[in-house]
């Protein structure tokens, strides 16, 4: 049962957004702080210089079409990091490459251009404009760009329909529930067809039941839209549910980056292990990680029950209920990849 480091079914996709040793220091002496010394990221060294290291030497890359979740507790710097990525907060140093273009070198005009056409953002507390209707809010980013009224309203109506709020176009934000308000926020962020979609704790302000519903909605939307997504959350379960890959942050530093499975099976340190402890392995470990190679000819059609390679083991478990000893694991095109044995599944399930 060795952890797979690469996503077997995901083709190697080009990197959309890359972050190279990005720093954000708060404090009067931030511009003069020597970042190249070996202990630069140490809390003690920063404290001595009277600085707060909100983001320390972060390196990461987000692939096209990927859901990249940045997870951390409050104060871990995850919100600052996502604001560095969109340059809402000016990083102290580093490079942020979007399609290879360094955003930190872009001038104000270019930045407005990039934000208008390439980025969308969803906010924790929705950030809806109280004086505009749902339609007005969703059309707002297009209005700012100077898109003609008819065109922007058509687009906005389509987005409202997409998030399931059709018929409420003329409502004002305060007439909607929290979940509905966030749907408006989502529709608005999608109105400009961004390539890069930032979601800053979008569901944290919602009730648990609504949160779950919105996560499902988000998964549905992404299956249609296939955006490149940076998703911020403090909820590890949410991260596990939604992420292709997760970066765990602590005190401004990235502790570990990996797929949910990798984090659960091989936590980098005690801090990550603390989060993964409560996670049921069966829900994270994928069938492909647990299977044994397919004994027969690969071209033969699989007989009996099958399970997708990427499906978590927990999804395969009910298939054994009828008394089967084995379940065939198949790839996206239906070709058998391997065999999942009852014993292996039971072993994972029993260990929680």
């Amino acid at each position, binding site marked *: 049962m060795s952890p797979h480091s690469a996503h077997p079914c995901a083709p190697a996709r080009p990197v959309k957004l890359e972050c190279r040793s990005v720093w954000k220091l708060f404090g009067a002496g931030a511009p003069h702080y020597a970042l190249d010394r070996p202990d630069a990221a140490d809390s003690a060294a920063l404290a001595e210089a009277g600085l707060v290291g909100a983001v320390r030497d972060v390196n990461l890359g987000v692939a096209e079409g990927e859901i990249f979740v940045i997870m951390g507790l409050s104060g871990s710097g995850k919100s600052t990091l996502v*604001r560095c990525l*969109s340059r*809402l907060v000016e990083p102290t140093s580093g490079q942020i490459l979007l399609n290879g273009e360094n955003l930190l070198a872009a001038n104000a005009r270019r930045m*407005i*251009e990039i*934000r*208008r056409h390439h*980025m*969308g*953002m969803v*906010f*924790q*507390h*929705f*950030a809806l*404009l*109280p*004086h*505009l*209707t749902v339609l007005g809010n969703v059309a*707002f*980013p297009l*209005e*700012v*760009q100077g898109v003609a009224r008819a065109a922007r309203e058509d687009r906005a109506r389509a987005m409202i329909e997409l998030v399931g709020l059709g018929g409420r176009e*003329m*409502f*004002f934000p*305060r*007439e909607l529930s929290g979940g509905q308000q966030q749907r408006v926020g989502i529709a608005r962020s999608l109105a*400009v067809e961004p390539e890069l979609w*930032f979601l800053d704790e979008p569901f944290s302000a919602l009730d648990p039941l609504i949160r779950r519903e919105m996560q499902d909605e988000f998964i549905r939307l992404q299956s249609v839209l296939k955006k490149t997504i940076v998703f911020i959350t403090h909820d590890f379960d949410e991260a596990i549910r939604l992420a292709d890959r997760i970066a765990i942050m602590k005190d401004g530093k990235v502790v570990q980056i990996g797929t949910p499975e990798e984090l659960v099976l091989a936590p980098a340190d005690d801090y990550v292990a603390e989060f993964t402890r409560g996670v049921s392995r069966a829900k994270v470990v994928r069938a492909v990680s647990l299977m044994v190679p397919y004994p027969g000819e690969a071209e033969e059609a699989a007989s009996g029950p099958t399970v997708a390679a990427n499906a978590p083991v927990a999804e395969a478990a009910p298939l054994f209920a009828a008394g089967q000893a084995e379940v065939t694991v198949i790839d996206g095109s239906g070709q058998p990849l391997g065999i999942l044995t009852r014993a292996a599944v039971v072993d994972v399930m029993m260990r929680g």
Partner: protein
Amino acid sequence: MSAPAHVPIDDQPLAQPHGTPAGAQATFWPAVWLIAGGAFTLLWLYGEPVAKWAFKVPRDWQIPAKRWIGDFMRWLVEDASLGLFTFTDLTRFIADLVDIPYRFVLGLLSTGLLDGRGSSAEEVLPPLSWIAVTGLLMLLGHYAGGRRLALLVGACFGFLAVFGQWDNAMITLASILIAVPVGVGLGLLLGLAGHRWHPVEAALRPVLDLMQTVPVFAYLVPILFLFGFGPTSAIVATIIYALPPMTRISLLALRQVPKEVRELGRMTGCSRRQMTWRILVPTAMPGLMVGVNQVIMLSLNMVIIASMIGAGGLGFEVLSALRRLDIGAGFEAGLAIVALAIALDRLSQAFARKGRRHAQSAGHEQGAGLGGGLWRRHPHTVAAIALVIFSLAAGLLSAPLQRYPEALQLSSGTLGSDLVGWINVNFFDQLEAAKNLLLLNVLIPFKRFLLSLPWIGVVALLGLCGLRLGGWRLGLSVALLAALIALTGQWPKAMVTVYLCGISVVIAALIGIPIGIVAAERERLWKGVEIVIDTLQTLPSFVYLMPAVMLFRVGDFTAMIAVVAYAIAPAIRYTAHGLRQVDPQLVEAGVVAGATRWQLLTRIKLKLTLPEILLGLNQTIMLALSMLVITALVGTRDLGQEVYIALTKADTGRGLVAGLAVAFIAIIADRLIAAGAARTRARLGLTPS
């Protein structure tokens, strides 16, 4: 709601935590106070023969500020030049600029639109009839707040017509209709500038503090010089008076726009202008509407004062009635101002509260013809246009529909006088006895005591208070302001002001705080009390003066009664508000611990409410000071009188120096109390609200 002299407290430095250990702290300050108090008492009792300068500022120490200001003013009016034109040209130009829309509005409401000036003017269009104006405002009321508001507004304007105040009221309304938009616009622009550029905000703060604390009388004279006598300079004075709260509220409302909403603006790629007008201002709108309400109320508050420099209208009516002591006439015009104030206050509050709702069922609009559709979509606009056309036509046909017929006018004039007469005949002895008792036993001794204090000692003690409450910067600035009052030769008059203000505030607190306590826990009583104090704060300050004069004639006692009545509202409001905000869990903790009602009140609620009560007291002091200047009309002998005399003699220097002294007293009181409240809050672990 109006709180004319609101000085914010948010920029006060909190008490610096001291490095000294707690033990040393506990004995250090009492010792300091003991020594300071002892030294002060010694100086007070035995110092006079030794150090005369400590009691009366020597002549050659005095700063000739009056002369400086007078000279500067003369230079400004006579010589100052801005290249192509003089400074006076500029101000006269501004006056003309204000005059154009004023003439237009006045024409609509009162004189009719005229072609040409003076007696040769021809009427192009008659003014809106009383029915049209009342109807329009009722429609506005219906639009903003429904049927009840429409009826209230109708009743207020009906009152104006029935009691024969219509013409004067329209003159007043015209000047308010000009002053309010200009005041709101300028205030918002200043607020936006301060919000965008920090240095601007830093520069604005002290200016706003002074604008709000210098009594209006003090700057009437320079305005008179620069803008001339007449309605326009009255409008300018009104705008200056109403501007600071709008600026402050704009700053506050803009600062309160959530961070995420700003980020939204940046993420959607807003330009600076789009950020301001599409994001910041609309999001801050509910807060800004509170500012609009304040501007309206302050403009109404200025109506009477503005009539001193030629505003005319209701204010002039009250003022002239007050001067000839015709109580009945003055009271009626005063009530007319109140009616106007209530109508405009409720209207603007309704607009502030009016939540936007989505249009009801869109299906209705279809099917109906074009006219019907217009009617459905904009019923109020259509009704308003119909009303104006109809009333114009009707006014041409029948005079009573144009002007309210005199035969139907009522007057309560004799009623008011009769009532006062009756009270004076039957209760004269009792009233007189109560007045003399208080005067002889409280007011006069307190006044003598304050006047006998050495100024240098008071300055030192105030400085020490500042040091203790807010650190050395506060101590130094407080002492400096107090010393300036003395060195400009205003000390004795300032002490009289402090005495009148102090007594009034103590009495207002003694009455107001218990009312607040009692009302806080009884929901229905509180509702009633709230309506009463809202109404009290709607009334222009002059209104309080009249009944007091009727009953007690002129003098300090009358002034005190009027000040107490004017300034009591915040004492009640803040106390009740604070008590109602106490964390219910803390009260429950007290109940579970077995506290009696009395213990709950004294041990938990009042302790936690102390900062709030202090702020209420602060507001009470500010209101009392602004009222004191007005009571100069009934013969006090304080700084207010000095300002008033300067006004009648058109002496800019004298008026401004005395006015600044009043402002300094207000600022000293405000800063000390705010620092005290912040300290108490910090000690109680409450976050500043």
